[in-house]
């Protein structure tokens, strides 16, 4: 389903991600394939552009869910606002707007980040994946499917953030322990209190068995008590 360093959830062979690009710059060990050399040069030019932009709206190109999207935004527009309000991808939510709740979590080159604490203008040349980019042709991914089966959502407002975050976890760690899942979720808040079932869903999606922590006692049991 995916290459190792590439975001698995979209398909943008032409955009060399910033992460890979920097890797190329940073370490001589990375031998950029000859065919990529030209591309690399172009990228260097693009990100090295020391031009001053704004404060008025400027052209911004985002790569979201495998699509190139051109927008005109003030530099102070966050990635979250660009995605939600300008691209109308409203899956990711604005909840705290301060990088404390995780509802806005997107994958940036496959890595979960808070889109509320990132400028859109600062997110060009990166592969952005939102929850809308996780299911293809109406086919839910494993995490989404497990969320439904385990009832890992209630009001559902935190759900897209958790789903994106846990999808990224399983991409990097296909057989996580419950401790891994808890740690991965520590930057996402849920107010309805679905955490135990979010843990269950992540483990279920990874094919790890979990035990039910719930019993139902019938009236008979109660009378006999």
């Amino acid at each position: 389903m995916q290459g190792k360093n590439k975001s698995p959830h979209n398909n943008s062979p032409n955009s060399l991600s910033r992460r890979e690009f920097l890797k190329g710059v940073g370490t001589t060990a990375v031998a950029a394939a000859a065919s990529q050399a030209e591309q690399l040069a172009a990228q260097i030019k693009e990100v090295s552009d020391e031009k001053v932009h704004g404060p008025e709206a400027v052209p911004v190109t985002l790569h979201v869910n495998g699509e190139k999207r051109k927008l005109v935004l003030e530099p102070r527009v966050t990635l979250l606002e660009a995605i939600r309000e300008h691209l109308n991808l409203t899956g990711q939510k604005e909840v705290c707007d301060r990088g404390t709740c995780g509802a806005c979590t997107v994958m940036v080159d496959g890595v979960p980040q808070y889109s509320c604490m990132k400028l859109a203008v600062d997110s060009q040349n990166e592969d952005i994946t939102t929850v809308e980019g996780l299911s293809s042709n109406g086919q839910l991914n494993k995490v989404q499917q497990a969320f439904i089966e385990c009832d890992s959502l209630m009001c559902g407002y935190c759900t897209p953030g958790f789903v994106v975050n846990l999808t990224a976890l399983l991409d990097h760690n296909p057989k996580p322990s419950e401790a891994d899942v808890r740690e991965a979720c520590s930057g996402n808040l849920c107010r309805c209190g679905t955490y135990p079932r979010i843990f269950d869903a992540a483990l279920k999606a990874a094919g790890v068995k979990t035990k039910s922590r719930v019993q139902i006692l019938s009236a008979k049991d109660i009378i006999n008590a």
Partner: protein
Amino acid sequence: MPSWPTEPVYIGKSTQRVDGPEKVTGEARYSSDIHNEGWIYGMILRSQWPNAKIHSIDLSAARNVPGIKAAIKVRDDEFVAHYYGQELAAVAGTSKQACIDALLLIKVDATDIAFVVSEETAINPDSSRVFPDFPNIGEPKVRENGEVDKAFAQSAVTVEGLYATQIQMHHCLETHGNTAHQQGDNLTVWASTQGVFSVRDGLASNLELPQNKVRVISDYMGGGFGSKFGPGVEGVLVSRLTQKTGLPVKLMLPRYDEAKAVGNRPSSFQKIRMGADADGKIIAFELNSFGTSGFTSGPSTAGGGGRAGFPSPYLYNIPNTRVRQAGVAVNTGSSRAFRAPGHPQASFGMESIMDEMAARLNMDPLDFRLKNDTHDSLPAEIRRKEWKIAAESFGWKEKYNPPGSSKGTIKKGIGLAGGTWGGGGRGTQAECQINSDGSVELRCGTQDLGTGTRTLMAIIAAEIFGLKPGQITARLGDTLFPPSGGSGGSTTAASVSPAIYDICHNALKELGEVSGMEDPTGNQWFAACRKIGIQPLIVQGRWQEGLSSRGVGGVQMAEVEVDTETGFIKLNKVLCVQDCGLVVNKLATESQANGGVIMGVGYALYEERIMDSLSGVVLNPNFENYKLPGAQDMPEIEIILMEMPERGVIGIGEPVTIPTAAAIANAVANAIGARVPTLPITPDKVLAALGKVPNKPADSLAGNWGDFDQKLNWSQYSPTQEEGGGH
């Protein structure tokens, strides 16, 4: 008398949420996600003063900001803004940035007025007043039973304690707000609400519109917990902005405003005295308490409905009781209903002193409960069984050690607490449309707060029609549908289920007549529906007696580890045993129980709104310092649902959150042999309770209000008959 099927296929089993796919893919459109053609942003300017006379508001510079389409004032006259965060003005513009820039340019001419934000300060006669003509604290409501003073005199053991609970914020993840669109005479509002009809009626009366010109829709909403019944000032303002511009306006509160003006759980300051005989039977009880529900607390409610009272004495059967309670006004935003209003406060105070008494009597707290949880009521009867079931499942007797006897630096402790709640159903109407292709649509003007109401509707219809829940389309959250009440008080399931039962049975009757089939359900369904013809069958119905009931009991037990050198508390386990009548959807019921416990964990250990007495602002209007429980804070949660199908449907959203904090507090006290008397129980308080903080002796932890009842001479007030304790 109607009755639920005795051998159901879906009812009582686990059914996946019918709207799960929309929620996991981001397709679900919440009020915050409604982007109608041409929509613009709305934003509110709030008072930055804790108390101020607002002379005038100048909007001219704001109106000149490019992109700004409208700027309005909340009121045109001079007025007093009573708290930090009170609404002053609003703007609408084509971008968020334009609105931000405009708000910064609004000039407010205001004069500071002395303020008070601390309850402990506000009760003093020399405190500055929230309303000049009234003292901040009102006369207490007094309830008295038996001969209290005599009973105390006869008590073998008497204990006294001071307990306080904090202001808890709802902090629904979707903030309060709406998208509103005025088109011609018609106003449509997509509201994040627990009551589409209450929002509609509130808007109609505020805006002087006929109710039939206002439509409120809440397809998906991101949590309410009691704070989202009316339109709120923000609802009125967004409606005025769309009326002014003719454009759809989206106005969702930013998180920091959520901490100011849209509700909270009132605080409580409880002075409790309890007397018991030598056998451990409680014979005397006295509570004097105050708390705040914000600026609308106290003797002048200034149009607000805030109240800081709570049921007392809670749960236990005590023959001689005296309860005096008052509200105190402070310059802060008003409280609103919050998941089981009053009960978590009541449970914390009562269960704390119960454990203090048990320790004095050298009794196991469980035995002490069993001896005194003796009311002649169904919830109490059920709870008496729950104590035993819980004890057995938890291993209470094996794990229990007297307070403070745990060895080592990290000490283990266990605690327990109980709760009760009413709930029950009430008038709800619904309709069912059956089409000739066999498809079914249910319509009900209720809301799904995340509790799974939509799924519940589908389950009941599927059960009665012999179909699958996935074959039913359940629609709700729209004032065009038959009316239902607000989703509060754990009443939604018990209100909606009987109405769906009724419409489905009515529909079967009509379908039988149309199709000529005696039993058109199950295999016969599609054949029967083909006889319907072009005009679908539309059948109405309403809530029926006999399919739901009210009154539940629950108990919880908690196990903690307390690091006595750092004060850090690790919550290992919570067991929740909850009476719940007929379970409609096992999955959703369990999720509710998990959620209630987790909210109780936050109340116990982390959450507290901090008001600053120096500046008068909310110091933590964010999730950085208003701490919500997170993934790593989760204990093992075990749920035991006590199913009694013959009682019919009973909601459990609220009861499950009541005992959690008290059980955890008792577990901490059991572990360390000292009590932290105020919530939340944070490491600093644990260290102080252990006597390890030089400038904070353990007996200072409750605060400086212990003699308030004497200072205010509360003994002069005689009983007024009001609602009493919770059983």
